[in-house]
Each structure stands twice: as C-alpha cells, then as structure tokens.
C-alpha cells in the first residue's frame, strides 16, 4: 500500500537542490499519437482499420495485414502484469536520481504486450489497468495502476512524477475577483494544497465574496495585478520561490467583433490582460519554476491557463475576445516548449461560455465556475495537458476535428 506523503518541512538549505532533468523524450512521428491521447488522459492505441488488430509499439504498417491505416482509438487498458523488474542501474541521469525504478511487462486483454512504468501498488501476476501519461520530457509513457484504486495511490512516487498533484503544493491564483478564481481557491484548499495565494488587484477596492475568500483554509490574499509588470515582479520576488502551481484566471470578456467595435481601446485591454498578462506571468515566475521543478515533494509542477474554446476557432459574436484568446493560446505553445526544459507542465483548460455575469445573454449550456475548478484539479491530478470542459467545449473540439471550415461557417450563423 502506498505510504501517504508527509507534509514537507521547510527546505534545508544545506541539502542539495535536485536539479531538473528529463528522461529521453525523442519519439517517432507515429508515436505522437500516444502524446495526443496522453495529453487528454485517454488510453488509445493504434487499431488497424482493415483487420482490427491492436498494435504496439506504434507502427506504420499492420503486422497482421500490412494495412497502412492504423488510427489511434481508445482501447480497454486492462491486462495482466506478467513480469516486473526493479531497475537499480540506469544510463540516464534522470533515472539515476530516482533509483530504484520499477517497470514491467503487461499483457493487455486487448492484445499486445507493453513495457510500462509500475505504480507501487501493482504486483507481478496481478491484474492492472494502463494509463497514458506525459513524463517530465513531455513525451508519452504507459503507467500500470492497480486494477482498483488504492488508498493514497496519488502519493506514489512514480505516480507523482507523472502528474502535477496539488496536494502539499503551493498555488497562485492570479485573479480572485472572478467567480472562477474563487471556486478554484476553494477547490485547491479542499485537495490539500499547502498555501493558496489568491491575487487581488487594487486590494482596497471591495468585492463580493471577499469575506468568503478569507474564510477558506490556506488562502492568503496577495496584491497582484496582471496588467502591471511591477506588481507581477513584486509578487514573484516575494513568493515565486515557493509557488508550485499557477492558475491564470485573468479574464477580459466583452462582446463584439472587429468592425463593429469602435477603436481598439478594448482590444488593447483584452490583449493586455490575456496575452501580455500571460507573458508578464511567465517572465516573472517561469525561470524560478523551471529551476525548482524537481525539488522534492513540493516541487514546481505546472502553469494552468484558462482559455475560451473560441481560441481554437473564432466566434464572431465575441470576435475580438476570441482573437485575444487565440494569441494567448499561441503563447502557451511557446511556453510549453520553454517550460519543458525544467519539466514544468503547461496545462490548457478550454471552456465554453461560463455561468457568469459576462455571458448573461448567451443561452445554455454554460459552464459553472465550480465545474471548471473541478476540471482544473482533475487535470493536475491526472497530469493532463489539454482539457475541454463542458458541452460547448467538447462540441467545438469534435467539430474542429471533423471539418474546421464547417465550424467556421456555422459559428457565424
């Protein structure tokens, strides 16, 4: 059984800081089908479109019928752990720092045998279920979990290495004035985050729920204005060395397209909050997070960016807003590459219209702030990279995959 994690004590400055390292992250182009599934938390393997054989490792021809049509499809991840080994000597510095390391051969009920990382609660000869995870290099790996959930299983060292679990980690929520920011503060507190820093711009300005925010265990209100470089820098200097997860909740939502708006003042604000805001955040906190990404139980783990799903395809009713979100999305792709050097995960959480004041005129379905907060926590616990929350977001993603042009036309309707 997994030993529950002990709350980490203050860092002893005399002990070595474990520097961030990555396992070998190179993959073939075909294997990136696994990356896509892992990023979304699905277990998908290549399944021959002609003969139905499930294939692993990733190939470009089916070994049963030579068909080149091998799309990735979700498959049942259950199987038997036939053999295991505990590796004590490794050629890669990343694993040398984490020895011993268990791996095993799992025979999937669905067919192939897979070499997998092993959760501590798996046993040779017993049944397991496989999940795809992203490792510190951002590359996909297979993790075998015990067939049924076990107590404290999230605390297993290999599991924790492949996820960004908020337990005992310190979180910064960039804007606590929003309903989503407040829901997130409550959610992080509930899953055992050590400190939840909640940023408030112009703290002297009162807002509803201020009292409630103060009442949440572990919450610490800090002055933070994402549109003010100095304010962001100041907070990074103050607490940057002990912030492990950042959730960027800064929002700026106004209706209107490009022509119909007068001038670019609002568009500038949108870009300032969303695009330049993310840039300020990344420049101030990114370097220290990258450095601290392997430093024990409460190492730096992730930056979560909340994004309108219309970042993926413009919704002209909120056309300028969508464009700012798209800029923000593009920036996260660069950040993802830049943060990977330290193994810090860049998580994008896409959602449709929220159940908040800014979307009053939009018909349902809408996403409740609490649901969005739950999705963020789950994404961190599972180690996801791309998350779609709510029916609209799922709908847009699905339509985008089938025919982007159709989606573009239909969003203008």
């Amino acid at each position: 059984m997994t030993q529950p994690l002990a709350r980490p004590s203050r860092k002893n400055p005399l002990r070595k800081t474990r520097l961030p390292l990555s396992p070998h992250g190179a993959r073939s182009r075909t294997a990136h089908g696994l990356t896509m599934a892992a990023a979304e938390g699905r277990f998908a393997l290549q399944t021959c479109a002609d003969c139905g054989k499930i294939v692993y490792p990733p190939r470009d021809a089916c070994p049963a019928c030579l068909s080149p049509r091998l799309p990735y499809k979700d498959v049942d991840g259950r199987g038997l752990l036939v053999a295991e080994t505990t590796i004590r000597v490794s050629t890669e510095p990343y694993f040398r720092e984490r020895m011993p390391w268990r791996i095993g051969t799992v025979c999937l009920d669905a067919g192939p045998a897979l070499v997998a990382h092993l959760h501590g609660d798996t046993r040779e000869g017993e049944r397991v279920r496989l999940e795809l995870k992203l490792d510190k290099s951002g590359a996909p790996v297979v993790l075998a979990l015990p067939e049924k959930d076990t107590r404290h299983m999230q605390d297993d060292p290999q599991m924790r290495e492949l996820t960004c679990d908020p337990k005992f980690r310190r979180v910064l929520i960039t804007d606590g004035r929003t309903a989503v920011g407040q829901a997130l503060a409550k959610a992080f507190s509930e899953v055992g985050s050590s400190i939840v820093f909640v940023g408030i711009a112009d703290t002297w300005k009162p807002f509803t729920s201020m009292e409630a925010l103060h009442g949440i265990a572990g919450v610490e209100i800090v002055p933070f204005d994402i549109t003010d470089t100095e304010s962001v820098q100041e907070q990074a200097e103050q607490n940057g060395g002990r912030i492990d997860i950042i959730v960027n909740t800064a929002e700026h939502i106004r209706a209107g397209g490009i022509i119909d708006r007068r001038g670019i003042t609002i568009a500038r604000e949108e870009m300032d909050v969303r695009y330049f805001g993310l840039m300020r955040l990344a420049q101030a906190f990114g370097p220290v997070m990258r450095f601290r990404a392997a430093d024990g139980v409460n190492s730096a783990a992730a930056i979560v960016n909340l994004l309108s799903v219309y970042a993926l395809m413009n919704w002209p009713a909120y056309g300028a807003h969508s464009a700012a979100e798209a800029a923000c999305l593009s920036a996260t792709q660069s950040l993802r590459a830049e943060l990977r050097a330290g193994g810090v995960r860049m998580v994008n959480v896409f959602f449709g219209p929220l159940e908040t004041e800014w979307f009053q005129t939009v018909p349902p379905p809408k996403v409740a702030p609490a649901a969005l907060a739950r999705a963020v926590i789950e994404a961190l616990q599972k180690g996801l990279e791309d998350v779609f929350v709510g029916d609209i977001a799922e709908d847009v993603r699905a339509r985008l995959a089938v025919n982007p042009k159709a989606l573009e036309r239909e969003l203008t309707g």
Partner: protein
Amino acid sequence: MRSSQRQAYDDVVLCAPVTVAYRRYSINTAHWWIGRALRALTKQAGLRHKDLDGLTVSSFTVGPDTAIGLTQHFGLSPRWLDHVPFGGASGIVALRRAARAVQAGDADLVACLAGDTNHVDSFRKTLQTFSRFAQDAVYPYGSGGANASFALIARNYMNTYGARREDFGKICVAQRDNAQAVPHALMKKRLTLEEYMAARAISDPIHLFDCVMPCAGAEAFLVCRETTARSLGLEPVRLLSTIERHNAFPEDAIQVRGGWAVDAGELWSMAGVAPDDVDFAETYDDYPVISMMQLEDLGFCKKGEAAEFVRAHTLTNDGSFPHNTCGGQLSVGQAGAAGGYLGLVEAVRQLTDTALGTQVPNARIGLVSGFGMINYDRGLASGAAILARAA
C-alpha cells in the same frame, strides 16, 4: 512452404581466426578496430589486403559509415560486399552469406569482420538510438538498457520453468573458469557461486555477474574454399550446416524461446549429426538465461529443462559439455557486434587446436549460436552453425 532440400556447403571453410585484444574503453574509432582486425587477418593469411575480393562488416559504432565506406577507407576493391548490422547474430548471418558467395563463385576470399569501439559515453548513446521501438517504447522506461529488458525475460523464465539464480550462476562461474588462460579476457578473477549470489542487483533478477561488460574490440575470420585455405597454409574448419530466423514466435507475450526452436531440426539433419555428437557449444551469452534458451531450443534438452541440464554438467573445457570455451562475453567482454563473432572465432580455434585459452580435448564438432537485436522487448535474430574439424 519449404520447396527443396537445402544444399550442403561442400568445401567451403572458415580459417584465419583473429581477435584484436579487447579494451574496456578506447579513444580510437570503430574504423581503427576493424582496420586492425583486417590487418591481422591478411597477415595471418599471408595476403595483400587488395587480394581480398569479398568483405562483410558488422559494427554498431562505425556510423555514419557502412561496409561501402570502409572499402575506400581500407583501400579494398572487393567484387562482393555486405554489411550485417544484426548484433549478436551478425557472425552467423555473415558466415551464411559469405559461404554461399564463395560456393557460387561470386567471391573467392571473403574477409568477415566485426568490431566496435567503446568511448566513455558511447554505450548510452547507442541505447538511446538503438531502434525506433526502443526509442518509443522501452528506453524511456527507466533507461536500464538490455539489463532491464532481459530482467523481464529472465523473471518470466524463472516463473515459468522454475530455473533459479544458482543455475544462471553455474553458467557464469564455469565460463569464468574457461577464461582463465585467455590472455585478453577482461574479467579473469575467479568467480565462486557464493560471490555470484552475493553480487549487487542491477535489475532484478539480473545481478552484476549476469551482465557482460561493454568494451572495444574486434574479431574476424576468412571464408574460402578448402583448397584455397590449404594453399595459403591455413588450417580450415568445415561448415556442416547453418540456420537463421528472425522475429520468431511474435505471439509469445514474453520471449521464452528463439528462432532456433523453429529450425533446429533442419540444423541437425543438414549436418548429419546429433546433439550428442557435439564436443563443445558456443552459445550467445549476453545473459545466462539466453544461453539456457539456446540449449533447449537447439535440442540439447527439452523446453524448460535447461536448468537441470546445467546442473548435470560441468560446462568447463576439461569436463562434461564444454560451453563458451573462451569464457564467453561474460568473461572476455562484449565488444559490440564482435560479440556476435566471438563464438565462431573461438570455435575455429578449438577445431584447429589453436585455442588462446584451454583446448577442449579431442574437439571434432562444435556448435555456435547467435542471438541479437532487442528491437523492442525481445531478441529478434537467431542463428546457429555446426562446424567440424577438417579431416
């Protein structure tokens, strides 16, 4: 599917066994090591290297070159050329092709060469880029290299057939005894079963003395007709039969057998001898569990009974069933692809009374088997040859 009886190798022979003494690490290139083997080969045969009209090369570290680049590098103009990048099966595969080329008259003198260097960090780099499947589906899992892959195979073999670590140890200890008189063996300190059992774990159940030591070195031999060998004053060794098989039994969830199990019958019938007639065996010993699989699959004992077979024999050159008579890779080291030549070169020496270490008394027939290329979770290539002393 087999349509015809395989043709015998007639008077094709192996001769001029060459070993370039191994070193743990080398600052030289693979070209340097292979070049030295070629030089030693021509010297032993009394030939100018330009007289060689066939060349086959095996090496992991000669990249970006292949055999074609080496022709210019070494100043050769062969009319028959091959590159065999099959790791531990390279020797058998190269021999098979060279033998048929000589038999058909496509070449008269084929130099078979294998060599690798070992720079301080070249082993890790070889592992990282060993194969696409390894890159995608093995190396990111702890980067334990072959040790981890064979640990899973060994673990499953032990679970399935009841082999014990002591049985693996018996093979390692006996080979270390056989290595005592071999001048270039990297590991010659005598090994006891107690020391074997007490060694540190590398990747359970693989412990220190189950692992070969990566090193630099080269091995070579010449393939030609018996008359050619005699005219050069070289002691020939006859080739009775060979087999080769790749990716056998893909349906086995974990490897418990190799391609030998498909083709062993043909190996013995083509040679016209039986396992009992063999005076010594050189199996591919990157790990003792693989030697056990070879003993079973090649017909020396039944499947799952290799542990008992090992217990029943000394496996030493002076005892019953001499096995890996120069100490094998477990004692002399694994010089990359040259590891796939080691057994053949040693067998040629045993059958011409030129063993560098101890000679197996009255050795007339020897078996050599090869195994290689852990592409994903198992060794894909397997091969074997039966060699005989020339009359």
